[in-house]
């Protein structure tokens, strides 16, 4: 394709110096000519703009009054509708009150205040050589007068003192919390503790756990324990019943941990500790809704997808004389997210 400018324009396009030479780079042409606004030249337009600004400020005044009236007029009762009405009217009034001022001020600035761009010079950030010399002198004089260079003993002990003085501040933080000790490896589960429903704490009969059902379980007495939330964050358990033949590879070590296909697993995800609350009945998969770690109940809740590494710990359970589900012992390993000392 042929691309051409209008003929004869080239001589005007580039400025040559007196000798007719071209500069290496284009030169800044300077500010473009100013374009006047309608309100600059037409008093009628200016008057119009003035009225618009005043109208916006007027809207603000009305908004303020409306907000105050709404506060007293629409008092929320015990219904969502009344709360919504109060919220909406208050916010609407406040919004108009604020927007009126804001838009008015901006409109004023844009239409009526001068819009001639001005120019001022910058100065390099660097101080002048004289400044720098003087500054250095001052610092050197200060250092010399303090004698910090001549008296290394004073300097070094000061540095040592300063290095250490923050330590009490760190030591003082020691009582922010107790040491972990073995608390992360122990839960409320123990031999004979009944499995009870979350949250009401009713014990669960083995016969009530039908195939395909799922129970959120807490140890008996959790609600009455000293710190129920902390205990629950470790002891929460999920009970499911499935055909024992569904288990893909039987682990002899876990022989007798279930009651006729009733399995109890920790509910706390081994990733970062969310509750693994979603159960797919058909596939026997357990899914953590936080980060989608997926556990397969037919493989002792081994991780089959997602960021978790370890299987959900299984709680060995049995059945007591009255037919209720009880724990055989505590978990055999720590539950919940990994930690350094976990091993």
């Amino acid at each position, binding site marked *: 394709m042929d691309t*051409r400018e209008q003929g004869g324009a080239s001589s005007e396009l580039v400025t040559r110096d007196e000798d007719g030479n071209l500069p*290496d780079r*284009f030169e800044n042409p300077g500010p473009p000519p100013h374009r006047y606004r309608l309100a600059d030249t037409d008093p009628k337009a200016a008057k119009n703009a003035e009225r618009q600004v005043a109208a916006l400020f007027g809207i603000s005044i009305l908004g303020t009054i409306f907000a105050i009236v709404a506060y007293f007029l629409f008092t929320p009762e015990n219904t969502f509708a009344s709360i919504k009405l109060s919220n909406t009217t208050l916010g609407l009034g406040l919004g108009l009150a604020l*927007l009126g001022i804001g838009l008015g001020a901006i409109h004023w600035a844009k239409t009526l205040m001068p819009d001639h761009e001005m120019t001022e010079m910058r100065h390099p950030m660097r101080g002048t050589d004289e400044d720098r010399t003087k500054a250095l002198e001052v610092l050197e004089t200060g250092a010399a007068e303090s004698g910090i260079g001549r008296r290394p003993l004073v300097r070094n002990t000061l540095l040592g003192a300063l290095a250490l003085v923050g330590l009490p501040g760190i030591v003082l933080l020691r009582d922010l*919390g107790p040491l*972990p000790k073995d608390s992360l490896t122990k839960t409320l589960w123990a031999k004979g503790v009944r499995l009870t429903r979350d949250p009401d704490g009713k014990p669960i009969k083995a016969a009530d756990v039908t195939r395909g059902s799922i129970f959120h379980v807490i140890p008996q007495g959790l609600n009455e324990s000293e710190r129920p939330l902390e205990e629950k*964050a470790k002891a929460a358990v999920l009970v499911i019943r499935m055909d024992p033949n569904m288990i893909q590879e039987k682990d002899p070590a876990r022989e007798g941990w279930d009651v006729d296909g009733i399995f109890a697993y920790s509910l706390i995800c081994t990733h970062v500790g969310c509750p693994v609350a979603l159960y797919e009945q058909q596939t026997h998969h357990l899914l953590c809704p936080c980060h989608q770690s997926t556990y397969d109940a037919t493989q002792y809740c081994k991780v089959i997808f*997602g960021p978790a590494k370890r299987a959900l710990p299984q709680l060995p359970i049995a059945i007591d004389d009255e037919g209720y589900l009880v724990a055989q012992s505590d978990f055999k390993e720590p539950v919940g997210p990994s930690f350094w000392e976990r091993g």
Partner: protein
Amino acid sequence: MSQTTTPNTAAGGVADFLDTRLGASKAVRGLSRKLFPDHWSFMLGEIALYSFIVLLLSGTFLTLFFVPSMGMTTYEGAYAPLNNVPMSEAYASTLRLSFDIRGGLLMRQVHHWAALLFIASMTVHMFRVFFTGAFRKPRELNWMIGSVLALLGLGAGFSGYSLPDDLLSGNGLRIIDGVIKSIPVVGTYLSFFLFDGEFPGESIIPRLYIVHVLLIPGLILALVGAHLGLVFWQKHTQYPGPGRTNQNVVGFPLLPVYAAKAGGFFFVVFGIMALFGSFVSINSVWNYGPYDPSPISAGTQPDWYILFIDGALRLMPGWEWTVAGFTISFNILIPGLILPGLMTGILIAWPFLESWASGDRREHHVLDRPRNVPVRTAAGVAAIVFYTVLALAATNDLLATHLGLSINDITWTLRFTAILGPPIAFWITKRICLGLQRHDRELALHGRETGRIVRTADGEYFEVHEPLNEYDRWLLVQHDARRPIELPPDVDENGVARPGARKDRIRQKLSRWFYEDRIEPLTPSELAASHAEHEHALEAGEGEERPVVTTGR
């Protein structure tokens, strides 16, 4: 004081009072006519500042009613479904604040919306500063202050999100606890110190409260002061344009134009937040119930700015190993700590990285057009793509349910996208930037297409191009094309190795990566030559020509 300046009006009296005690006249004289360049993108930082002020105002209202305590109580109030439910004081007071205090719900929603806007505007403001190179000397320190402000914003957001002690905020803390516990050696101790024992404990809400209402806002205020002080002291940057140079500032004076626009804009931001708070509900904590470690619902996402960490946690495969009896959880450490740390580190170090590569020690007050710095722009876009993919990953469950796709497929796709997406985005962006530069060059050289086809006397057709005026052309030709640094040889003429030669080679590689591919801006002689050629070509009847382009290797 001379007779002529003795005040005789009330305002004059106040002014005199202030000046004779503070020397206010000097400050007013010096500052009030200070010039600020005008551009819409300079408002982004303003939005951040104003939403922060809205946060301070609405937050102060909230503190009048919120009880930062995890002591247990039983709720009795206007919200019937939760009546007689045991819960913490924090959650109960949040419910009271929402339902029993007039304007309480409005202020809560304004506060939450303003928090989202605060971080969003800081983010976009950082994009602007990054892509225009406003962080270059002498403003590297202000870039660092700004980066710290953005991090503090995240801290403020997260600590505030946790305060209501509802089910979602408790689960957020649960995840934080899991991340802290994954830290090698000290993680368990840190967790116990933070929560005053086992999670959740009874101390975390009051502790986060003081972090949220005093510590972080105090730091933000101080750093905002420093940030703005530096903008004043160093004067604002300006976009390239006719009349604007590296030595001047072209703009409007603080008084009255800038004060009216900026002051008005504060009210606009506040007003929009008020409308959002009244019409768009957010974080309806009453729907979630009090925190309890065992229930949770699917499809729960954190606030948008935490999405990338949550998404990274979701994408990570289960890399966890036990070494010599100790557990190291890379599946949590990498997305939860290492990756955000690395991203922050690169962000803060970028100005120094770039000036090391360019060898440029000059002050820069005229902004870059992003296309003229292709590698920086491409790196920025690659980072945004990476961040966005991670954020998207945090919604993988929603994507799965809404699009009817398998969550496993989505996760795998996003895993690959997170790794392959950024380099692809980098390459595409760089090509687009170079293409735009070529286009600029063409435009400066040949002018605009007019659509007017002319037939010459000997039957040849060509389209008439209208040359640009010098103001329009200036924008296209004003920039410097940066070149890779040249190094002295590794050994001098006597065969002695130059000290630092090895480090310099890395530097040169970086410099090449940055500046090898470039388009030189048009020079006057090229323009003149092109025209001379055209006139000649017109006579000779041939008009083929190529732009002068330098590309790497």
